[in-house]
């Protein structure tokens, strides 16, 4: 009967994971979906602690799990630390947090494999088992390998996102990666084929070390801005590692949970690439860098641009009827969301109608702008999605672009040779005036020139977004 309840709990776990993922992919139900999955997870965890039984040797009696004190200790510790970290983290630092948690999962899978390996090695050493069970060994090695790659990769991704690790292209990196992969393969075959029984353990740990190296080298050269995509990919790796755990213990909830995440994560990775109009391969070998130079060269000196003074900007905006603010990555970098909200309020007091035009991939993670502006308490009705924004562009007097670049680049519509060709953009040229705030004429994420800056309608307002906005607000209060 206990075993029945255990299995039922696992079934509940699997079902809640499916439902949770399903609900997470619709805006209205997303939050509930997360809770549903969390509920299922709790059920599965407690069912395991209290109801799981195992045999020490084949004919021994079934026993409940021991060391409950340790287990609960670890659970409580993890819960407290995890909750605090997750609650305290700033909105904009969330992707790095996710990456860190993902790494923890990978490390967990790795540790499980190591313990199980030791256990098996011990049984062989003491003669309980004659030769290693190769099926088990395969699962252990694979779980350990993927878990380690995911762990190492996630830590690097985390470091990149919080700025402590800089992008680095290692010369001959591709080559080195191949060599490492080859090494892993050779060692894995030798371990699985039981070719050098005496060397099993060193070889096993050799795989672990190589896998860690691979994880590091795999993520290292990828541009910091591509990290969300990479994290999503590492996410699906950890999912697979969890699934191998499921094989190890014939545990269907680990299996469904792991594989679901593995496949959903892969699709999500691809979707994220598509939203940015890039291919996964492109992201992984970072070929944007290559195109950058070429495109930049072809376009250098694309024309002349005109600047606008803070004073003029304030006047133009104060006497406009409809203003649209288009935030981009620069706004997030400058952390200017609060002062931006301030600007909006000042304008509204003067009877100006202000809205925000939100491009789906503005910033560096999907929904970045929504999250950023929500943090500054900008009301939701003021955020227009791309289609809406483009529709009301015609009746907009002034468009103020704050640190956005690629998402307003007309090359996406006009220049088939451009690497961002085909990406939908915010069509700011339909508005009367366009004011662009950025610090220089440097390109944005995609590394390409933006013709918009040279258009007659456009005026440039150089400077750090936060500083400029502060002055602008001050000016406006005097107009």
């Amino acid at each position: 009967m206990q075993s029945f309840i255990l299995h039922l709990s696992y079934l509940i776990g699997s079902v809640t994971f499916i439902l949770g993922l399903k609900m997470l992919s619709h805006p209205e139900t997303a939050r509930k979906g997360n809770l549903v999955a969390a509920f299922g997870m709790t059920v599965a965890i407690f069912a395991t602690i209290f109801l799981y039984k195992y045999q020490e040797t084949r004919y021994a009696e079934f026993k409940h799990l021991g060391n409950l004190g340790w287990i609960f200790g670890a659970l409580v510790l993890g819960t407290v630390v995890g909750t605090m970290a997750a609650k305290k983290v700033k909105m904009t630092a969330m992707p790095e947090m996710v990456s860190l948690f993902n790494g923890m999962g990978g490390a967990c899978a790795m540790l499980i494999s190591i313990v199980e390996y030791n256990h098996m090695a011990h049984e062989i050493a003491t003669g309980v088992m004659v030769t290693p069970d190769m099926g088990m060994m395969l699962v252990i090695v694979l779980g350990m390998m993927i878990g380690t790659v995911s762990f190492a990769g996630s830590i690097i991704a985390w470091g990149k996102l919080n700025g402590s690790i800089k992008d680095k292209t290692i010369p001959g990196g591709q080559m080195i990666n191949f060599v490492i992969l080859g090494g892993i393969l050779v060692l894995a075959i030798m371990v699985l084929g039981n070719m050098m029984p005496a060397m099993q353990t060193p070889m096993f740990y050799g795989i672990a070390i190589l896998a860690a190296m691979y994880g590091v080298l795999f993520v290292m050269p990828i541009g910091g801005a591509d990290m969300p995509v990479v994290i999503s990919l590492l996410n699906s790796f950890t999912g697979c590692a969890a699934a191998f755990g499921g094989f190890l213990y014939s545990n269907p909830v680990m299996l469904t949970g792991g594989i679901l995440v593995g496949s959903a994560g892969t699709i999500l990775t691809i979707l994220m690439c598509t939203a940015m109009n890039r291919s996964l391969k492109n992201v992984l070998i970072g070929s944007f860098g290559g195109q950058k130079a070429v495109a930049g060269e072809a376009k250098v000196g694309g024309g002349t641009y005109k600047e606008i003074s803070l004073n003029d900007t304030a006047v133009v905006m104060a006497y406009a009827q409809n203003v649209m603010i288009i935030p981009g990555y620069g706004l997030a970098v400058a952390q200017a969301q609060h002062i931006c909200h301030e600007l909006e309020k000042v304008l509204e007091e003067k009877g100006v109608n202000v809205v925000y035009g939100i491009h789906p991939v503005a910033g560096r993670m999907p929904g970045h702008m929504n999250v950023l502006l929500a943090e500054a308490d900008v009301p939701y009705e003021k955020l227009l999605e791309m289609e809406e924004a483009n529709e009301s562009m015609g009746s907009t007097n002034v468009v103020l672009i704050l640190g956005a670049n690629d998402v307003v680049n007309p090359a996406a519509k006009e220049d088939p040779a451009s690497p961002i060709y085909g990406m939908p953009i915010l069509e700011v040229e339909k508005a009367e005036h366009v004011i662009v705030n950025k610090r220089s004429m440097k390109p944005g994420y995609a590394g390409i020139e933006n013709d918009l800056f040279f258009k007659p309608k456009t005026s440039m307002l150089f400077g750090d977004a936060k500083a400029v906005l502060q002055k602008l607000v001050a000016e406006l209060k005097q107009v």
Partner: protein
Amino acid sequence: MDAIKEMVIMFLRHYDLVTVVILSIFLGIEVISRVPSVLHTPLMSGANAIHGVVIIGAIIVMGKAAPDDYLSLVLGFLAVILGTLNVVGGFVVTDRMLEMFGKKKKK
């Protein structure tokens, strides 16, 4: 070749699990394939929390460790902590992200 034979046996023994794997793959693809781009980050985060289910393995490892097997105990302890971080942190962070979206929805 022994290894291959054992893997075949493994496949047969876990045959139903293989079916589960395949169905799960398809299901994962189907469920996710139409998610709007604003939800990419929370979804990634939610999925991240779900693979924290690996913690069940950690609990089993820990629970089976003999009381004098310090290596296993320590590693298991660590594994449970890491797994918990993954699960709890993942769900809480996701909830916070979605709260942001949700808050705005209601007004």
